[in-house]
């Protein structure tokens, strides 16, 4: 299909302003400056642009929550803390096409009357931060940032803020805490960031890909965008495929394409290597419940995957494929170790529960666990879920619980055999 979001990814030096402008850059901003300020949000709502950070919350609706006339400044915070295992798209938007992100930020600034945007970028993404700082410098130099941008009356700044290694800072309130110079420990919601966000001010928090799509929705129109995907899931989407497939990498696909196509089509994943069979697929990053190989006939969008019997999510569209040589118990153990490492420590069920779950899973995988511990595992994860300040606890419960639900025979076999029979890593 035609590249829309990723159109500039293989254009040489597309991260520079002159090349970006040669390829149509900043035409959308100009169009927005000529529109009724109040007309932008309805366009975004009509387009069915869903947030691409994991939750799939409609972007237009989130923008509409920001209060109008306030006597405190309002901010956009771009969540560039890409850390969900299996996810690798925002990194490339920032490295290869940073001006598209900046254009989206400035459009948000004008539409919502914002003072500034902070791009909170994961500390490990060094090149992304450098390219964005350089892009921002170009914009200040040409009057596309700063005071009275292109005579529109908009004063707007964009700042890059590097994180320092903490997956939890991808949670919007933890990100805001971290941006304020503190540890990344999530806040209770309500109040939501639209009411009390960064520096105590109304804030809208959006994922990199979501904001990068905004100039594209303006350019192509809401109707075109809505028509590209499935119902209520407008536009194309960047899918990232990894694991035991012939063709891992990033692909731009229509929202709602079949998950089976993503994994097997020669246009995308290309199916398994070495004549093996696929046994499991994670549809959107490791926090999403795993699917069995017989459950792939589903639209990959933010709604269809939530339905029974799939009971999972599109998440970040990080599709991880596992073939018959992969031990799903070992995968569950590795995911549990990740959660234990990344828990911020605030809530007892998560802080203690992730460590406990990780130890039990390591024991099951190595073959030294008792049968009762498998049931105990389910009990523990169900007690983390729903009992925490932030969705991290829910993710632990849902993702680990899914391995138990989908592959119970694997856990029992490890216990009964007293060892793992799959190839070592």
């Amino acid at each position, binding site marked *: 299909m035609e590249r829309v979001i990723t159109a500039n990814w293989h254009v040489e030096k597309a991260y520079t302003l002159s090349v970006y402008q040669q390829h149509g850059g900043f035409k959308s901003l100009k169009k927005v400056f000529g529109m009724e300020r109040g007309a932008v949000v309805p366009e975004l709502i009509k387009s069915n642009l869903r947030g691409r950070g994991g939750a799939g919350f409609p972007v237009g609706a989130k923008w509409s929550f920001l209060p109008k006339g306030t006597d405190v400044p309002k901010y956009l915070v771009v969540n560039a803390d890409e850390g969900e*295992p299996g*996810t690798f798209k925002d*990194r490339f938007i920032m490295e290869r096409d940073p001006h598209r992100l900046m254009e989206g930020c400035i459009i948000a600034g004008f539409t919502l009357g914002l003072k500034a945007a902070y791009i909170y970028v994961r500390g490990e993404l060094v090149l992304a931060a450098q390219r964005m700082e350089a892009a921002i410098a170009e914009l200040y130099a040409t009057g596309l940032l700063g005071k009275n941008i292109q005579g529109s009356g908009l004063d707007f700044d964009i700042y890059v803020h590097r994180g*320092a290694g903490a997956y939890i800072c991808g949670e919007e309130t933890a990100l805001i805490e971290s941006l304020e*110079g*503190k540890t990344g420990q999530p806040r209770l919601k309500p109040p939501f960031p639209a009411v009390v966000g960064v520096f105590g001010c109304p804030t809208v928090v959006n994922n990199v890909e979501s904001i990068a799509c905004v100039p594209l929705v303006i350019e192509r129109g809401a109707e075109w965008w809505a028509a590209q995907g499935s119902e209520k899931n407008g536009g194309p989407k960047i899918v990232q495929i990894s694991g035991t497939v012939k063709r891992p990498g990033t692909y731009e696909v229509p929202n709602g394409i079949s998950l089976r196509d993503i994994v097997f089509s020669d246009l995308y994943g290309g199916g398994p290597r070495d004549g093996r069979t696929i046994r499991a697929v994670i549809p959107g990053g490791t926090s999403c419940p795993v699917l069995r190989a017989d459950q792939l006939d589903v639209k990959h969008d933010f709604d269809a995957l939530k339905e029974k019997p799939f009971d999972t999510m599109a998440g970040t569209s990080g599709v991880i494929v596992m073939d018959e040589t992969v031990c799903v118990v070992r995968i569950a153990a590795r995911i549990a170790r990740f959660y234990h490492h990344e828990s911020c420590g605030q809530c007892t069920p998560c802080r203690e529960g992730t460590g406990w779950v990780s130890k039990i899973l390591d024991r099951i995988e190595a073959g030294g666990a008792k049968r009762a511990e498998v049931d105990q595992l389910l009990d523990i994860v169900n007690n983390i879920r729903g009992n925490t300040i932030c969705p991290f606890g829910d993710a632990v419960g849902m993702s680990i619980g899914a391995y138990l639900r989908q592959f119970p025979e694997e856990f029992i076999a490890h216990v009964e055999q007293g060892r793992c029979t799959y190839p070592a890593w």
Partner: protein
Amino acid sequence: MFNPNATDIDGPILFSPENEKQLATLIQRYPYKRAALIPVLHMAQAQFGWLSPGVMAYVAQRLELPEGKVLQVASFYTMFDKKPVGRHKVEVCTSVPCCMMGGFAVVRHISERLGIGVGETTADGRVTLLEAECLAGCGYAPLLQVNGEFHENLTPERIDALLATLR
């Protein structure tokens, strides 16, 4: 010689002239100084090599923060080193899916080549070997990061070629 047990930085702890300018730039990005803490800690670590007690106290003083707050933040984030590290921090991703695509084999290869375990540093202070959580390059697994650069689609040959460049 590398001293893994050093308790602080040798010599005066003062920002370089370039970092003084950068400090001023960073502070003016935010409504209050505390918000600049994490970018300033990155800057301090790059200049001094690691965040020793003396470095953290210096940052606290410059940003008018309690030392305990700086220690709390430095402890929370994995990129901040509160102990001495080698000149090149080699971080190998062992999250899902890298772990099923050879991430642990990369760790073992480097460990054997350099004679150090995970979390250890070579005696000459050249390389520290670490495992990392997902580095956002999953389609190009296995991969590692060193000196801010990613090295993807690793093979034993590529790893050896990289190690040879880490002086």
